[in-house]
């Protein structure tokens, strides 16, 4: 499977995330001869356990995440980042969980966007989209809880993530061998962005995959873990901002 880097936008000190970034980034891709190819989407769901005795809540991990990926439609991935667990299962597990009423969705995030082809590179840009009928603008933090929010009532809260980006280099699947290539590609993209004076940069999710039992050869589990890390990072950023 081709190596993929999952990126998030890190604004410079003092500036906040702006939804303008998405448009600018997309235009940059097109300026380096990217060709819009099709749609893609991903779903991230934070689960909380349904317990009879609420006091036990603390025993259960808070970052239990379920992810569905566009290029693996028949699979579903679970990650508990704090315990370094990643699991691949069949997508029917969601139905089973519903029937068992064991876990409930706490926050559901839907990303939708386009994918672009630039020669042997593939870029995906996914914006947070409305769930149900809400006009969702992003993910917010309130207290220690995550919410997806609509434009109207939660505007005073900090938007922490409005889009997720990923870059794939199709010919090879070794993370080690593709590192330099991906770094330079990011540089090229940044150079193009720099011309538009955007305050910030894209950051890759770097982590020790070995802790999750994952190797050098790239797999969808790597992606799932990366998405979880992006979320964790976002939360940490907001917490830092709030002091």
């Amino acid at each position, binding site marked *: *499977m081709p190596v993929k880097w999952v990126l998030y936008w890190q604004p410079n000190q003092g500036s906040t995330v702006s939804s303008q970034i998405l448009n600018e980034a997309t235009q940059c891709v097109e300026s*380096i*001869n990217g060709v819009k190819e099709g749609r893609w989407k991903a779903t991230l769901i934070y689960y909380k356990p349904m317990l009879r005795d609420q006091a036990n809540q603390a025993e259960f991990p808070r970052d239990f995440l379920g992810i569905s990926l566009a290029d693996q439609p028949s699979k579903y991935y679970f990650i508990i980042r704090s315990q370094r667990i990643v699991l691949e299962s069949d997508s029917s597990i969601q139905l089973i969980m519903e029937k068992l009423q064991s876990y409930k969705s706490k926050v559901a995030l839907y990303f939708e966007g386009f994918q672009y082809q*630039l*020669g*042997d*590179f593939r870029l995906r840009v996914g914006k947070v989209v409305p769930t149900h009928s809400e006009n969702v603008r992003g993910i917010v933090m309130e207290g220690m809880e995550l919410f997806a929010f609509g434009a109207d009532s939660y505007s005073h809260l900090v938007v922490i993530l409005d889009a997720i980006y990923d870059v794939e280099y*199709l*010919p*090879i*699947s*070794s993370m*080690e*061998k*593709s590192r*330099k*290539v991906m770094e*330079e*590609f990011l540089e*090229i993209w940044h150079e193009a962005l720099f011309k538009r004076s955007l305050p910030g940069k894209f950051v890759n999710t770097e982590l020790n995959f070995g802790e999750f039992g994952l190797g*050098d*050869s790239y797999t969808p589990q790597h992606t799932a873990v990366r998405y979880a890390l992006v979320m964790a990072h976002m939360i940490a950023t907001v917490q830092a901002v709030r002091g």
Partner: protein
Amino acid sequence: MQPLHQSQLPQNSAEAENNQSELDAPPKQVAQAMDRLNQAARVIADIRLGADRILEALFVASHPRHTDMPLQLFLREDTSMRQHLQDLSLIGKKLEESGVLTESLRSRSNSWGLHMPLVCPDGAVVAYAWKRQLAGQAGASAVDRTRLALKAFTDQKRRFFPHIDDGLKMEPRSKKPRASHSLLQHDREEPVGYETLPDMLSRLEKLVPNVKVSTYGRLNWLKRASSLHVSGGEDSTEASKPIFQSSSKLRSGLQAEVVDKVAVIELSVPSVFRAVVSLNPAGSLDPDAVAFFSPDEGGSYLHARGLSVYHVYKHITEHAATALQYFLGFGTGSGTPLYSLLLWICSFESLFSKPCSKCGRLLAMDKKSALILPPLHRAYQELPLAVNMDVCEAYHAGCSPDES
């Protein structure tokens, strides 16, 4: 259906006429011969019709209704048939005498370059005069066409293979590689006059230990290519056993008979590339094609004349074709073209790590294809036979000094 006049004449005058015809100019002879052939054709047609009528008469005679008519018919046809046959034999004699049925006239010098029409044994008439003229025209245009084709070919050769021009010397790129090259002359082993493939490959793998070298017969390679798939392409399946595995101990003896059939050499650097070289004829040391693929690619299109689905390997394959032509045409002074090619292929181990020697970057936008690519070019003109293949310089297609 008239009997010919000539048949009425006495034999003498017929002979006289023949003698006269010998004195005629060749064009007249040819014209006369053509005439007589036409006459002969007409008589033959008459004979055919006569034969039909005789058969008809016989048929009618078999029906006892008509009493006298069939006999009359029969007698009439009989007479006319005999006449026809006589005519034909006369014409035949004349044709024979004028050399149409034989080739006697050809040996005559005084024929003005024209030949009598010749009746071939299978009945075809060859009118030489006309044929010669047409043939002459065709010949002239063939010469022209050949001349044009040669010119077009020379132009193409000059354009795509500039280094194969005769009499043109190549400038050395810089002093350094030359120096290192000559230094290594001492350490370099003597080029073997004739080495076997296993020897060559073991020499190679000592030089580039990270590259896996395997050989296959053509059919076995096809099996292997089809069994390679995206996940876990590195494992060779039972279905396709390579004839020579780099770490195999079964080299001597057993391999001697099998080496004859080696037609494909596979060079693979895990996670970087897989290169396929084909040998033609199988069992020889002559490479005729090379192609590069992703290590994750698999399928029956994976062969020395196939193309990868990824741009980077597609471009390398194109570049490799030029390098192959260079090795076949020039060689690098030591080692066979095959060895040079294999060594050059191994220099691509650094495909995703070695930046371009000109611009210092790994990725660059290739102007021609509007794609972002790593340095795909590796210098092949002065192939260092150093232990460390890193000496081989890498360039982007646009940065390459070869670019013209």
